């Protein structure tokens, strides 16, 4: 890529939205949905009926709202949303160690029989969902951060040229 191509590519950012970051953030929501659907539909008797699942439900709602708003923010090259997305991405990793880790391999008594709450297969799935969701959010944040920097520098150059 020539220097001119690179300049044009930067100049295009003045008019083209940051779809890559925005779409990555939406993808992060999608994998989070896969995660909580997998958890909620697999309730074994009343194992999950405690305050942690309540917090989880509220967090999922807040998560979806925050990431959706961030996806709109990064679409318009708003740098601050990068920080928010990066933090939410790290929290997604942390979530692996809360419900999935606790439920994995734990047994509960249902109709007098001992039942494993979360089998290995489901555990692997939810870990992948959360990890992919986190990766998407962090990638979205990084891409937006880099592009915002490039755009700022380009706009400064244009201002310097009196454009």
């Amino acid at each position, binding site marked *: 890529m020539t220097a001119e*191509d690179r300049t*044009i*590519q930067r*100049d*295009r950012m*003045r*008019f*083209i939205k940051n779809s890559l970051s925005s779409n990555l953030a939406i993808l992060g929501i999608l994998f989070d949905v896969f995660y909580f659907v997998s958890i909620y539909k697999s309730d074994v008797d009343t194992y999950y009926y405690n305050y942690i699942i309540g917090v989880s439900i509220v967090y999922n709602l807040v998560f979806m709202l925050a990431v959706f708003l961030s996806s709109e923010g990064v679409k318009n090259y708003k740098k601050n949303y990068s920080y928010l997305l990066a933090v939410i991405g790290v929290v997604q990793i942390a979530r692996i160690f809360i419900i999935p880790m606790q439920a994995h391999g734990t047994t509960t008594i249902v109709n007098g029989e001992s039942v494993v709450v979360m089998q290995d297969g489901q555990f692997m799935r939810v870990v992948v969902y959360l990890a992919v969701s986190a990766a998407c959010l962090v990638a979205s944040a990084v891409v937006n951060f880099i592009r915002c920097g490039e755009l700022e520098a380009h706009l400064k150059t244009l201002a310097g040229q009196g454009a």
Partner: protein
Amino acid sequence: MATLNLQHIDKIYDNNVQAVFDFNLDVKDGELIVLVGPSGCGKSTTLRMVAGLEDISNGKLLLDGKDITATPAKDRDMAMVFQSYALYGHMTIYENMAFSLTLRKENPNVIHKKVLAAAEILGLTSQLNKKPAQLSGGQRQRVAMGRSIVRNPKVFLFDEPLSNLDAKLRGATRREILLLHKRLQATMLYITHDQTEALTLADRIVCMSMGHVQQVGTPLELYDSPANVFVASFIGLPPMNFYDVRVSGGKLVGEGFQVSLTDEEKHTLRAYNNKEITLGVRPENIVEGADVPVTVSSNENLGMNTLVHGHVGASKSIKISAKLKGWRDYKVGDTTSFTFNRKHFFDKETTNAIRGGEG
């Protein structure tokens, strides 16, 4: 750019209604041709056939000498600007202008250069991040033109692009189109029913009526030497006055008036002595004089000119409109006399113009 040849083109719809009859036209490279005529005369149908949006029933269409009669619209390398702008409301102006090139999977950097260049030409650079709803009608029409420019087509087709604009904006956008044509030197086909647009924009005008071409010529030719009564009545504002007159010696005798003929006019009408013809006189070719007695029915002062409407002599049915220079203060019912400076003669049966070389 390109040449365009329309050869013996007909349009016959499935219900056997014929909209266009034997249309012939050679458009030169870089020429701006305006098709003008009243609603339903076939001008839009002709343009749609050129664009490939309507099938051509008979005849041939050549672009740069190559037969494109059966070529699909997308492969004709023509861009059309519609009356309704046809912009995507959810896209920004930049995205609207880039859309056709994006569909063709052109290099995004090339698209960017073309869009910026077109925006610069049309003065839209500061509007590129806006949505169509945030722009005025004139700006939206410029965006529609910009979308055509970025494609760099061989031929631009305009289908009444100014009809949705108010009078002031229409005038400004018309001038922009004219400048655009001069700048791009592009071959353009432009449809309008507004004769002012036709006269101001065209290199040549094609005047149509009922699917037939009535006359092809420069704006001056159509204004000064109309081929028939239709063209004479359509071109010019206020429209031409027409009178049934008899050629009698060196005079034209009409109901309630008679006017003398010049030697040249006598020569032109030598084959029509003692015959009825149609006399045409443009309002701007009428001056105050002694030939035609007129009873004034209205007096409209326009500043530099005054439009005087009335009827000839005692007859209420024979009307006359005159565009007199300067300010006049005729009252309704006043009587005066006019003289015709320049006259047009038409055969009463064929309605064709009577020319000096005929007869």
